[in-house]
C-alpha cells in the first residue's frame, strides 16, 4: 500500500463502476471522474479484457494502470470497481455486494435481464447508494425506502395509458 501521506485525495475515491456480461456486453457504466468518451471506451475495452481473462480461483483484486480494480461475478454479470491505490479493497468488495443486495430487493431475485430492461432504475439505485464515488448511506432500509418513495411518486404522476396510446397509435 502506498503511504497515506502521499495520496492526492485522502479518503481515496472510486473512479468508475462497470457491469458487464461474460460476452463483454456493457450493462452499466458509472464514471466518477471526467474523461472523454473515447478514453472511456478504451478503458472499458481494456479492462473487460483483463477481467474476463481471470480464472475463478484468483483473488478479487488486480492492479490496472495506476488503479486497483475490485471485481466480483454474480451469475452472468461482472461487477467491477476501479478504486485508487490507497482505498480499502475489502470494503469495496462489500460495497459491490451491498449494491447487488439492493438490486435484488428491488427487483426480486434480480437477474441480468432486469438490469437490461430497467437500466435507468439500476442507475437510480446506484445513485441513491453512492454519490461521487462515495457511499452515501449504508443502511439497506434507507436506500430502499428512498427508491420506493420515488416509485410512488412516479405512479402518482402517471395517468393510465392504453397500449395504443403508448405506441403513439391512438
Amino acid at each position: 500500500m502506498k503511504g497515506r501521506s502521499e495520496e492526492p485525495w485522502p479518503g481515496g475515491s472510486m473512479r468508475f463502476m462497470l457491469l458487464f456480461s461474460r460476452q463483454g456486453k456493457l450493462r452499466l457504466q458509472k464514471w466518477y471522474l471526467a474523461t472523454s468518451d473515447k478514453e472511456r471506451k478504451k478503458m472499458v475495452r481494456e479492462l473487460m479484457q483483463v477481467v474476463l481473462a481471470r480464472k475463478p480461483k484468483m483473488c478479487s483484486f488486480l492492479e490496472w494502470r495506476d488503479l486497483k480494480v475490485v471485481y466480483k461475478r454474480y451469475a452472468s454479470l461482472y461487477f467491477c470497481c476501479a478504486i485508487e491505490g490507497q482505498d480499502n479493497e475489502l470494503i469495496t468488495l462489500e460495497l459491490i455486494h451491498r449494491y447487488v443486495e439492493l438490486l435484488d430487493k428491488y427487483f426480486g431475485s434480480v437477474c441480468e435481464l432486469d438490469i437490461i430492461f430497467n437500466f435507468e432504475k439500476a442507475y437510480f439505485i446506484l445513485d441513491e447508494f453512492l454519490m461521487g464515488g462515495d457511499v452515501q448511506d449504508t443502511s439497506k432500509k434507507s436506500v430502499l425506502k428512498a427508491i420506493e418513495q420515488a416509485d410512488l411518486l412516479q405512479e402518482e404522476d402517471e395517468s393510465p395509458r392504453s397500449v395504443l396510446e403508448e405506441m403513439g397509435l391512438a
Partner: protein
Amino acid sequence: MPAVSKGDGMRGLAVFISDIRNCKSKEAEIKRINKELANIRSKFKGDKALDGYSKKKYVCKLLFIFLLGHDIDFGHMEAVNLLSSNKYTEKQIGYLFISVLVNSNSELIRLINNAIKNDLASRNPTFMCLALHCIANVGSREMGEAFAADIPRILVAGDSMDSVKQSAALCLLRLYKASPDLVPMGEWTARVVHLLNDQHMGVVTAAVSLITCLCKKNPDDFKTCISLAVSRLSRIVSSASTDLQDYTYYFVPAPWLSVKLLRLLQCYPPPEDAAVKGRLVECLETVLNKAQEPPKSKKVQHSNAKNAILFETISLIIHYDSEPNLLVRACNQLGQFLQHRETNLRYLALESMCTLASSEFSHEAVKTHIDTVINALKTERDVSVRQRAADLLYAMCDRSNAKQIVSEMLRYLETADYAIREEIVLKVAILAEKYAVDYSWYVDTILNLIRIAGDYVSEEVWYRVLQIVTNRDDVQGYAAKTVFEALQAPACHENMVKVGGYILGEFGNLIAGDPRSSPPVQFSLLHSKFHLCSVATRALLLSTYIKFINLFPETKATIQGVLRAGSQLRNADVELQQRAVEYLTLSSVASTDVLATVLEEMPPFPERESSILAKLKRKKGPGAASALDDGRRDASSNDINGGVEPTPSTVSTPSPSADLLGLRAAPPPAAPQAPAGAGNLLVDVSSDGPVAQPGLGPTPEEAFLSELEPPAPESPMALLADPAPAADPGPEDFGSPIPEADELLNKFVCKNNGVLFENQLLQIGVKSEFRQNLGRMYLFYGNKTSVQFQSFTPTVVHPGDLQTHILLAWPSPLAPGLPSWDEMDPGRDPSSALLPESLSAS
C-alpha cells in the same frame, strides 16, 4: 424476472430494448437504432408539443442508445426541458441524461444551472437531492463556480433534512476534489465537524468522507474532529451487533463508517491528548482481539467486513509507527493471513506487510516470514499475489537476507509475466547494488539479469554496472573474465554484447594473459556478434576495437582491416561511418603515445545517486522526482571525438605598449607585400594556401622579440601606427611557426568559430559560415587592455585569384573589453569587424 419495467411504464422503451436484443447482427442493430433515432428526431421536431411522459420516454431511449456505444448528438434540449418538469420521474430522467451525456454548450449549461438552482431552492428534499446529485455527477468547473458557495450553507443549515445533508456533504466533496479553490474554508467548517456527532449514521458517514478530504489541505481547521472520531469509533467497535440495527452488516457494526473513521485518523499524527490516545489504542486493540475470536457468521460478507476494518486498523497502526506492541501484533496477524485459505486475504496480507517492513519496530518481525513469502512466490497461482510476494521480498530485504532474496527473485524472473519483468529487473539491480559486500556477486547478478531477461534490462541498469566496474579496481578482472565467458554462449542477448564489449575494451588486458582469452580470441568473439547487433551496439563495439588496437597492438592489422571494410567506411548510418573513418585514421596517424593517451582507461565515474531508483519510482507511481543521472555518460562514447582540443595560447607577455601584432616586425620572407589600408584583403582559411600577412609577425612570439620602444601609455595612438592585417597567427609556411600553429590553424579545418589568436593585448576570433563555394567570415577583435585602441585598422591579405569583398568600418576605436564569442552578433556589436567575403572556387 420478466422483461417488463417495474413500476409500470415506458413500455415503448421495453419494446425497443427487446427489438435490439433480437437483432441478429451488428448491421441489423444499427439499422434498428437509426430507425429509432429518425423517429425520435421527428418527434422532437414535430409541431405537436410532446407531453412529459413521451419526452421522458424518448430521452430514455436516447440514453439507452448512447450507453450501447453509439454517439448521440441531439436530445440535450429536451432533456434540459425535462428538468423543469414538476414530475419527479421526468426530472430524474432529465438529470440522468445530462449527467451521462455532458455537453459543453454554454446555453445549455446556463439552462441546466438554472434548473438546478430552482431545485436547490425548492425546499423539496427529493428535488434537492436530485440537483445535488447532478452537480456531483457532472462536477465541472462551471457547476462548481455556480454552486460551490451554496452547498456549504445547505449542508449546515439547521432545517436541512438528513438525506439532503448527506447529499450536500458528498456533493461538496466532489466539487472540492474537482476545483478546491472554489470551496474556501469558512464558518461552516466547524459545523461540519460537529456533524460527526449527528444521530443519523448516513450523515456521519458522508461528513467523515468530506472531512477526510478537506483536512489534508486544511489540517488545522478540522483538528477538532480527531477526538470526535475516536469516540465515535470506540462506540461502534465496542457495540453489540444489535445496537446499530440498520447499519449492521452481517453482524458487523457499521463497517463502512468504521473504515472511514480509521481513514480519517490516518490524516493526522497520533492524538496528543493522553485520554483520547488511550481510548484509541484500546479501540485498536479490541479490533485486533476480535480478529482472533471465532466468526459470528460463516458468510464471506461477514468476514470481509470484519477484515476490512482489521486491515484499515493495521494501516492506522503502521501510519502512527509509534506503538511497538501494536505493530508486532499487527505483523503477527498478517503473518496468519499469509497462509489463509482465502486468496484475497493472502493478497492483502502481503500488500500490508510491505509497508510494515519499512518500520523499524516491525522490520525484524516481518523478516521472520521470509520462507512463507518465498513459498508464495513459487507456488501462488494468481499472478497478482505472486507480484505482491515479490514486492514484499524487496521491501524486507536487508544485508542479512539479500543474497537469498536476490537469488529467489532471479529464479522468479525466469518465469515471470512479461508485464512485470522490467520492474523486477530494476528491483534486483537495486538490491544487488545496495547490499553487495562482494562486488563479484553484484556483477554476477547483473549478468544473470541480462541473461534471463535481457530485453527488460534497461539502460540505467547496465550503465550502472559499467560505472561500478570502472570505479572498483578489485572487480575489474573478475568482470572481464565473467563477461568473456558469458559471451561465449551461443545465443547471448545484445545487452550482454554491449556490457561485454565495453568491459573488454577497458579491461580486456586483465585476462589477455590466459591463452583462452587472448586478444585475438577476444576480438573474434566480439566480432562474431557484430553483425547481429543494432547500430548502437555496433558503435560501441567499434570503440572497443580502437581500444583493442591500443591495448593489443598485435590485433591492429586485423582490426584495421575490419574498419577499412566498405561496410564500415561507407556504412549508411552516419555514426558508424564516422567512427570507422575516424578510428581508422586515428589508428594510422597517431603515434603510440598519443593513441595511448586518447584511449586511456576511463577515469572513475563521479559518485552520484543511482538512476535505477529514479526509474523505479517513475514506474511505480506518479509524482516521483526524476533524479535521473544527467551526468551519466554514454558508455559507448569514449570522448574520442573532439579529444584533442588545443587552446589558443598566450605565448608571451608583452608589455601593454608593445606592438600588438608585431606590426613593426619584418615581414616574413614568403609574404608578398600587402597594400596598406583596408580593402581587397583576404584571409585564406584553408590550410594549404599560402597566407600573406605583411606586417603581421609570423608568430606572436617573434613579434615580441622584435619589440620596439614602448610608447607612453597616454598615447595609445602609437600602438597602432601601422595598418594591422587581420589575424592569422600561424600559417605553416612561415619561417618558424609557433608550436601551436598547427593546431591553431588545423582547428579551423573543422571548426568555423573560435578564437584565432590571443595575446595580452588582443584577442581575435572568427566566426564563419560556408555554403557551397561561397563563404563568409567575421573577425572579432577584443581589446584586452583597459585603454581604448584608437584607429584600429585590420588588414587582410589574400592570394590573388580569390575574389574578395570586404566590408569594413575602419579605422575606428576599439574599446576595451572582450566580447563573448558565443554571443557575438556581427550585426550588433560595433567593435567587431565585418568581413563578409565571397570566395569563388579557384
